[in-house]
């Protein structure tokens, strides 16, 4: 589904991603873990070109998205993204936050989008917030809305950039619950997170990144219970 070849990314003189090649198959739940500054988020943001790769090639469903001639907006409509800081639009109601993109991109009519929004809101238990503004919600509620907003575009893959890192510990559970349900429904997911419990439970494959490279990868059992690389062992000994 997503094919990454020889991806590198530099910020000035700093090389954040070093020649990464990886393939993500439909239905996979990839969880990316690693220390801060290891390039996890940059890797994720390269997948929908929020960061422009310095070198390498990314293909999504047969379309080369790193080709300058590709209309990236059409690709992004099929890739949902959830941010650490939610990034809900504070100048709109929740319902409009959710329906803006499907309507403006011509995916749905306003009525269809409204209906879809209410269905999705009901799914995360927030249908009573449809007419509220983001500032009236708690962090956990905001993040659930952000997930719904991405889902409203019927994406083929969902990218999560540390979705629980900015939340109060109490609210982490409700967001992870929504993500688990999404995983059970068969959504292809790429998740950058520090929630090792979630990674072990939901991930179908774990990627451990350090200093711009994928140092080790495998099933949760292999990575967590039988780590090979010394850097991964050191990391796990600190976070588990």
């Amino acid at each position, binding site marked *: 589904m997503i094919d990454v070849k020889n991806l590198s990314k530099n910020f000035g003189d700093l090389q954040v991603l070093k020649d990464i090649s990886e393939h993500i198959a439909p239905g996979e739940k990839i969880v990316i873990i690693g220390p801060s500054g290891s390039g996890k988020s940059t890797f994720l943001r390269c997948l929908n070109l929020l960061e422009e790769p310095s070198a390498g090639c990314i293909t999504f469903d047969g379309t080369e998205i790193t080709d300058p001639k590709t209309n990236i907006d059409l690709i992004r409509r099929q890739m949902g993204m959830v941010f650490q800081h939610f990034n809900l639009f504070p100048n709109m109601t929740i319902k409009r936050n959710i329906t803006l*993109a499907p309507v403006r991109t011509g995916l749905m009519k306003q009525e269809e989008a409204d209906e879809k929004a209410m269905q999705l809101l009901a799914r995360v238990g927030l249908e009573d917030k449809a007419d509220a503004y983001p500032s009236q919600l708690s962090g956990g509620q905001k993040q659930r809305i952000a997930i719904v907003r991405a889902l409203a575009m019927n994406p083929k893959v969902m990218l999560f950039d540390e979705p629980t890192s900015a939340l109060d510990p109490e609210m982490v559970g409700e967001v992870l619950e929504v993500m688990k349900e999404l995983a059970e429904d068969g959504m292809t997911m790429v998740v950058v997170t520090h929630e090792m419990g979630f990674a072990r439970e939901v991930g179908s494959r774990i990627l451990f990144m350090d200093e711009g490279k994928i140092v080790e990868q495998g099933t949760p059992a292999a990575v967590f219970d039988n780590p090979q690389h010394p850097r991964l062992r050191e990391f796990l000994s600190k976070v588990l």
Partner: protein
Amino acid sequence: MELYLQWKDLMKAGTELPFWQDFYVKFFQAFVEGDRWMQYLKGVGSTLMVTALSLIIGVILGVLIAVVRTAHDQQRPGKRNPILGFFNGICQVYVTVIRGTPMLVQLLIMGFVIFSTSRNYTAVGILTLGINSGAYVAEIIRGGLMSLDPGQAEAGRSLGLNYIDTMRFIVVPQAFKAILPSLGNEFITLLKDTALIYTIGGEELVYAARAISTRTYEQMFPLVGTAIIYLILVLIFTWLQGILERRLRQSDRR
């Protein structure tokens, strides 16, 4: 009125009048006699018109420049559009020159050098004020666009909205709210700066006050009166700005 004429004659004859009689006569002379208050009213009218027209020019120029400069700055590194770069250069020169020279000098150059043959002094004044204000409005708008969390635009783009839609529905409405106090400030500055076009012969409130002074040989009442009128105008606009800001703040905190 009768008292006024009586005292005025005494004054002309050289009699020292008591303070309050003197005050009464000068006040009458400056504002009432010959319906002179009409001249101030007309002056206020043209001042407001000059302000409004130069603000329109200023905002149009300001938006254009801010859009060019922000679009230029937000290009992906290594993929810069040369045409945009060219316009960005022009905008930078414009902003630098306008902000780097006094408004009075700009007015004098426009009035006596560039448009020295034009008799329509007010129009030249409006144009100059508009061009001047454009540079400041551009910086205000650019600041507003830059101050917004980049995550907002990223969220819009990640949903597949294009650049224009992201700006239109997400960035600009929020930026507008953020810049409203500075924009209101700019409007008030502009309102007061219209007084400067008097120097090139533009007709507005100061022009009316000076015209009356030259008839009555009395400076204090027309000038202090003018100052009070400006103050009242500014207070009214400050109040209106406050109402608008409270409205736009509705979605912020409740």
